[in-house]
Structures are given as C-alpha cells and as structure tokens.
C-alpha cells in the first residue's frame, strides 16, 4: 500500500508538469507521423507529364504507367509541371518535346526532359522507374526502326511486332524468400514500433532525474525515517517509473492505432514485449537515478544513452538498412531486440511464441538492471 502511495506521488509529479505530458505523448505521435512519411512513403510516386500528345508520346506515357508503380498524370504545360514539382505535389515530371513522334519515326533524336528535386526516397524511386521505362521504350523504337531499314515493313507495324515479342519476355525475374518489407503495409507500421521503443526508454531515463532529486532533497531519507520498510520505498520508486513508462507505451500504441491505423499484431505478444521493455526502461532508470549524487550526470547520461542506444538499436533508422557489422553491434542494445519482436508481430503476423526469444533477452536485461539498481538504491537509503 505504501509502495503504491510512493508510486502514485511520482506519477503525479510527472503529470503535473505539462511539458512532460507533451514530451510523453505529443512528441511520439509527431515522430510516428514524420518517420512514417519519411521511411514509409506512399509506394506510388506521382509523375507529371507535359508536352507532345501524339500516338508515340502517348505510348511512352502508357509505358510509364504500365507497371502500376507510378501514378502518371497529364499536366498542361512545362511551366505548370515545374511548379507542381517544386511545391511537392508531384515527385517528378517528364517533358516530352512537341516533335517527339516525328523525330522518333524518322530515326532522329528526341530529347526528353526530367524535372525533379530528388529530395526524398519517392523522388529517387520515381527517377529510376522513369529511366527504366524510357530505356525500354527506346530499345523497342530502335528495334522497329531497324526492321524498317531492312525493309521488313512500315514503322507502326514493326513497332507492334517488337512490342509483342518483348511482352512475351525473354527473361523472367522471380523473387523468392521472405520480403524484408512485405507489400501492402501502411506507412506508419514502419515508424510506430521504433518510436515507441525510443520514447519509452528515453522517458524512463528522464524519470531517473526525479529519483536523484528525491534522494538529494532528503525525501527518500525522510520516507525511511517513517515506519516504511526500505523494500516498500524501493518498490514505490520503481512502481512510479514503471507506471509512467507503461502508460506512455500504451498511449503510443493506442494513439498510433487510432490516428494512423497501426495494427500491433497479436495482443498477447505485443503486451509481453511492451511489459518487458517497460521493465528494461524502469531498470535503467533505477540504476541511473540511484548511482549518482548529482543531477548533472544523470541528465547528460540519460539523454546520451536514450538517444545513443535508440539510434544503435534501429529506432531512428530502420535496422534493415544497417550493414551486417552494425547489426551485430545493435544486438547489444535492448532496442534491437524490441525492434525485432515488434517487427515480427506487426509485419509478419507473429504470435507470442514466435517472439519469446526476444522477450527472454529483454527480461534478462531487465533482471540485470533491476539487480544493480535496487542494490544501489538500498545502499543510498541506508548509507546516506
């Protein structure tokens, strides 16, 4: 009961400060949105096309849209196209010269102009797609011209023939194995779990400052002077931090599900990962808050560890984009294990049993941190 009293007073102190509430809830949701837009992407970049509208030009436009990977739309003129790209409405634009059809039929040269700011992944994807489509069309046009020059028939007929032949496809590409990022997932599925891990851990470490203050102010010693056992004080201090951490995790889950439609997978598995990661954060806060006798090192180390381990553990840049060596290093952070577990739950419909190894590793982290933290807190209580 007294542990609950101490736990609740800690929760009250944190929630009383509005900046804490903004940090705990507002910032993670914003982060999910930003990372979702950055790394999730729409997966269908928008391409604007202006200029010639003859049969061959339209054939090129159709080729650009053929794969379904690019949304193509006609834009009135080159000026408008450029403006739309600059404003971000389009990821890129293609200007087809007015003499395109004539130049192509006569075997001459037609200069296409590609407009792009190239500032995000969608724009880069789009440029690759446009290059590939234009190159393919160029190959077909040259093959048709070659037939005409050899007297095999008129250009339109030859083009139809080579297009059919190419459509059969001499080379087929088949993807095997499990896709790193399965198709059909929403953008925020990529950003929500890492953000949850990053913020839960960071928030837990910031609560360590409160524990250090409680010790420095003499409040913990005053608690110990009352008829309250040391174990109840320690349990209360731990409980407060766990409640804060868990509340943030739950609210990020709920908020991301409601606002961005993030599905967190198997509820039991997600709950298990959330709980053990809460324990890891709480344990780290306990160590940090109990070891130092001044607030300065707690603040500095808290931020450094929170951001550093988060970055290393794949919560800022996806773990999949790490090299093999860095991925091995990342395994030393609890974040990477949490990331793996959530990735399995969210992207691959894994269940509790599938994430038990990650849950076990996180539980070991938590146990080690709690052992050190409780020892340090008890020592600071009894020895002053």
């Amino acid at each position, binding site marked *: 009961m007294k542990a609950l009293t101490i736990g609740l007073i800690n929760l009250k102190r944190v929630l009383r400060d509005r900046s804490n509430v903004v940090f705990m809830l507002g910032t993670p949701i914003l982060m999910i949105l930003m990372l979702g837009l950055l790394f999730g992407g729409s997966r269908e970049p928008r391409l604007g096309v202006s200029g010639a509208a003859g049969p061959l030009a339209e054939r090129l436009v159709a080729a650009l849209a053929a794969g379904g990977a690019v949304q193509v739309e006609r834009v009135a003129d080159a000026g408008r196209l450029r403006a739309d790209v600059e404003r971000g409405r389009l990821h890129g634009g293609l200007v087809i010269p007015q003499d395109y059809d004539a130049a192509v039929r006569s075997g001459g040269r037609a200069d296409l102009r590609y407009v792009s700011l190239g500032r995000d992944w969608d724009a880069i994807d789009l440029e690759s797609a446009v290059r590939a489509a234009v190159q393919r069309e160029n190959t077909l046009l040259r093959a048709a011209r070659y037939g005409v020059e050899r007297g095999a028939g008129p250009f339109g007929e030859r083009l139809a023939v080579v297009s059919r032949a190419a459509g059969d496809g001499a080379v087929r590409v088949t993807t095997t194995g499990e896709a790193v990022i399965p198709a059909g997932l929403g953008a925020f599925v990529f950003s929500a779990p890492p953000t949850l891990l990053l913020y839960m851990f960071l928030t837990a470490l910031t609560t360590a400052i409160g524990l250090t203050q409680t010790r420095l102010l003499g409040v913990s*010693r005053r608690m110990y*002077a009352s008829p309250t*056992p040391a174990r109840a004080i320690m349990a209360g201090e731990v409980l407060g931090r766990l409640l804060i951490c868990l509340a943030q995790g739950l609210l990020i889950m709920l908020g991301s599900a409601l606002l961005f439609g993030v599905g967190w997978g198997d509820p039991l598995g997600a709950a298990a990962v959330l709980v053990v990661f809460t324990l890891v954060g709480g344990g780290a806060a306990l160590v940090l808050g109990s070891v130092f006798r001044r607030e300065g090192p707690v603040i500095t180390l808290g931020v450094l560890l929170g951001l550093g381990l988060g970055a290393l553990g794949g919560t800022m840049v996806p773990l999949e984009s790490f090299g093999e060596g860095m991925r091995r290093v990342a395994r030393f952070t609890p974040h990477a294990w949490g990331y793996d577990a959530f990735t399995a739950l969210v992207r691959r419909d894994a269940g509790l049993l599938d994430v038990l190894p990650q849950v076990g590793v996180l539980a070991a982290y938590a146990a080690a941190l709690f052992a050190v933290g409780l020892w340090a807190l008890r020592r600071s209580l*009894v020895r002053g």
Partner: protein
Amino acid sequence: MSLIEVTDLRKRYRSTTVVDGVSFTIGEGETYGLLGPNGAGKTTTIAMVVGVLARDGGGVRLAGRAHEVTSLATKAMIGYVPQEIALYPDLTARENLAFFGRLYGLAGRDLRRRVDEVLDVTGLSERSREAVSKYSGGMARRLNIAAGLLNRPRLLVLDEPTAGVDPQSRGAILDAVARLAGEGVAVLYTTHYMEEAERLCDRVGILDGGRMRAEGTHRELVSLVGAGDHVLITVDGAAAGAVPALERTPGVTRVDADEARLELLVAESRAVLPLILDAVTGAGCAVRSLEVREPDLEAVFLKLTGRALRD
C-alpha cells in the same frame, strides 16, 4: 523515566570515526540539545537515533524497546525534521503533508484533520495550496517541521531547524518547539547556535570530533568552566573605597576597582548579590547600575575544546 536511551553510539566511514561513543538520555517533555560546530557528528548521531543510518556500535532504546533501522514500531513514535527541506518542491504544502501522513499510516478524514492541525500549528494554513517552491526559506522550514509533527511524535528530532532562516521565523520555530515540549513531547535538537541551546534546552550535550565532551544543564556545564559570574557595578564617587568590604564578603573571589567602576568575580552571583550591595552601600557608595554576566556555553565550549563554537 527516560523516553530514549542512547548508549555508546559509534559510526565509522572507512578509516574515519565520525561518532565515537556518544551516550545520552531524554525524558518525556524534556528538550535535549546537541551543541557542536559543523562536522562535530551531530547529523550522523541524529541519523542513527532516528533509524535511517545503521550504526557500527552502541544501542538506542525508545520507550523501553530496542530501536533499529528496521524497527517500524519505534519509528512510528519519532517525528523527524531533517536539516534539508526534505519536501517535494513541485507539490503543494498540503500534498506533501498528505503524502508523508500516509506513510505514517494516516488516511481519510484523520489524515485531512491532522494535515489541517499541523498547518495551523506552523501558521501555514492560508498558503497550504501553494507549491513549496513558491515558499520563502522560513515558510519552507516551518513546513519541514510540520511534516515531522504529522504522527503526533513522542520524540521529536530536529536537525538544525533554524539554519538560514530570518529572525522572525526563527522565533516562531523556537516557540513552536518549546510549546511541543510543554505538551510532553521529548525533543532532541541539534544546533550550532549557542543562544538557541541556552534558550530552548533543558540539558545540552556538547559534541566535538564525534565525541561527547560534556553534558548537563546550563548551570552544570558552566560550573565545569570553573569560573564564577562577573558582577559589574557603577557607583557614585570613588569605587576603591568599597574594595576592602567586598574582599571580606563571602563568595567574592576577586575585586577590581577603576574610578567609579567595580568588577567582581563571584562563585554564585544570585546568592551573594544582597551581600555585595550591602558591602558597597556600607562603604558609602551609591549604586548607579549593576550587571551580572554568567558564563555562557560559548565559554564552556572554548574551555572544553580549545576553540570557538563557530570556528
């Protein structure tokens, strides 16, 4: 009968002994002062008495029971006012008191009533809903004391409760402590202010270098110095005429005369003052003024330790 008996307390930090064989007792309604300079071992002694610091030797008995760091029943009898403002600055006075009250097992209506009472005793009722961070130093000190009164303690332990407060708040704090002692609360009070110890404490223990140098009532301690009281008399006319009569007066150990001024050293001024006045007037001198200076605890401390209390 003593409420608390402290026997041969000892504490070491690595190779340094900070408390070395300290013993004292305090009865109900008695105020006991631990007087000593900074670093004398007062706070460490207090911490062991309260039960927040494990001792290396000695014992503490409270109301006949052994008192250890794990003794919850005896801890419930103690009100502890630490030297620092041990309160949450971001919470209001009422929230702080309610929190500590719950740790002493108070709840519901009892808790609210007791919080109101201690706020009233310390004169903080009107600003009880303000955050402690907005309090002046003196108000925060009073709230610190209020938190030590929540459990209606039988023993109130105050560790330098007036450190850094204005004279008005200091007066209010000393009055409150005296009132509590009058109600039967045993008080253990540490200070390095000699005047506070003289004003408040029935008995004083002088602590220096972790050892109890002497203890007793003010009078008992003063008698250790060996010197008597100084009596200063101003007379009309030549003071030298009164010297022979004064030297013959029992209890007067030394007489110095300087024009109209006499300075006497006497063993017990209260007892011999009428005889002194008779001797002076009998010698034909009219007394214009008389002042008695008793040796203070500062002199006692100087005598016992060879240095001033605030060195």
